[in-house]
Each structure stands twice: as C-alpha cells, then as structure tokens.
C-alpha cells in the first residue's frame, strides 16, 4: 500500500458515546472521578448536563482510526492535545491526513470531532510501516 502527503484517512465513527462505557473506563483506569459517572455531579460543578467521557477513551477512538487506516502496521508515536470535552451521547468522528512519508514511517495529523463540528482532540501520529513505500 502506498501513502501520499495530503491523503485523507478514512474516518472512524462512534455513533453515540455510551455512559455505560464510561463506567467500564472508570474501572480500567481505576479512577472513579464522578464527572464520568454521575450527571448530578457534572451539573453541580457547572460542567454541563451530561457525563463527560474519559480523555484516554477519546484517544483510543483516534488510535482505532489509525489502526484501520494502516492495517497490519503499528503506531510508533502519538501526541494528543485535549481541546474540549466529549459528553455522553455525542456522535464522534476521528480522522486524519498524511503529513509526511519517509523511509518506513508515515506521519499524520489527526483529530477527533464531536457532533460534526466541535474539535475535541488534535494531534499527530507516526505509523511504523513494514512495507517499502
């Protein structure tokens, strides 16, 4: 498979962020922060009216996009900047663009948007490829 600078990566969609999954992530992370679990706490803190997704889960969606776009390859490096929150029920779209191709690596700009417009993660990633490009 060949990659070119400017090439857009296929998007990865989460149709609706699940509050039930946030309960699982609280266990995975061993972090029972109630803003991920209890909407009344979110309201009391003035952070909105829906539970807030864990940041690492949002990074995982972007990683899923990369792994699907580069089947059989692996992520060598990734930087994620957390721009905004993801809320329960949000529709998410992860995507990216190839920003550089050299030797056995492909660099990408990546992003995660909520509800088609709100940027929640921006970042970069390097894919280590096994094939001659």
């Amino acid at each position, binding site marked *: 498979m060949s990659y070119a600078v400017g090439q857009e990566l296929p998007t990865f969609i989460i149709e609706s962020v699940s509050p039930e*999954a946030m309960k699982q992530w609280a266990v995975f992370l061993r972090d029972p922060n109630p*803003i991920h679990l209890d909407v009344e706490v979110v309201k009391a803190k003035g952070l909105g009216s829906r539970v807030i997704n864990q940041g690492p889960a949002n990074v995982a969606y972007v990683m899923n996009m990369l792994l699907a776009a580069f089947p059989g390859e692996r992520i060598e490096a990734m930087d994620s900047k957390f721009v905004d929150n993801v809320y329960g029920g949000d529709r998410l779209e992860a995507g990216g663009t190839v920003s550089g191709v050299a030797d056995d690596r492909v660099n990408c700009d990546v992003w995660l948007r909520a509800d088609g417009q709100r940027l929640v993660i921006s970042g970069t990633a390097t894919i280590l490829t096994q094939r001659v490009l």
Partner: protein
Amino acid sequence: MNENSDLPPAPDVAGTSLDGTEVYVISAEENAALCASTGVAPAADGSAHPIYYYIATQVAMGKTVAGVCNVCEFDVDDGPMMGSSGVVFQKPLMVGAPYRVKGKILGLARKRSRKLGVMDVLTYRLSLQDEADAEVLQTENVWVLPRRELA
C-alpha cells in the same frame, strides 16, 4: 516583568518519583472489554489496544491520580484536566505480559489562563518496562490544575 510574577510560586515538585511498585498485566478479558467499548475487536496477534500505554502507566505508577494531585497541593475534587498526552512505543503492548513503571514529575508551572484564571500545569514522564527491564514505551502527560482560589 513576567505577567505571572505576582503569583505565589507553585509547589516545587520537579523530580518527585513516580516509580511504581506493582506489576501490571493486561488481561485478555479486560482488553476485549476495552476494545468493545471503543467499537473494535481485539487484535488477533496477542497485542493489546495501544491505549493501554496510558492505562498501564497510570494504574501502575507509584501514586494514584489523587496522590499526584496531593503532591502538587491540589485537591483532586477541584477537577484536574488532561492537557496533552504523548507516547513513543519501542514495541507493542502484549496481553498477559508483566510490566512495571518508572517515572517522575518534570515540573509544575503556575500560569494565568484567559479561560481558567490561574492554573498549574503539571508535566510528568513515565516509562513502561517489561520483564527484562527493557523500555516498551515512554509517555509524557500534561495535566491542568485550575487554581480558582488564586484567580
């Protein structure tokens, strides 16, 4: 004159050890549940979802999230926020493999923010190592600790 020079200094926490004491193992069951929660199937080659870079290092570092906040003289109930997270993998994370964490706090910088008022920006670095003490990955995370009492 520095625009932050009128603020009291942030606690001097640079160099605080985050070395872990427990071994962390990614179970096949949890990896499968995590993958399902993000809308994908687990890899067939025994590798774990790469987001375990964050989970494994957070869970197995030497302090809890609340403990790290406490070192920074910040109440975890005041809501630490993730600013950024970076990772460089030397090799894939594998289900069933034992890992240990070494790491330290790199710095805590007090700043003014248009959005948050006064905040402390915490930077720490963690290394995940395998059974042979070889580095599997290194991650550097930035948390934002809002200091509403100083705004």
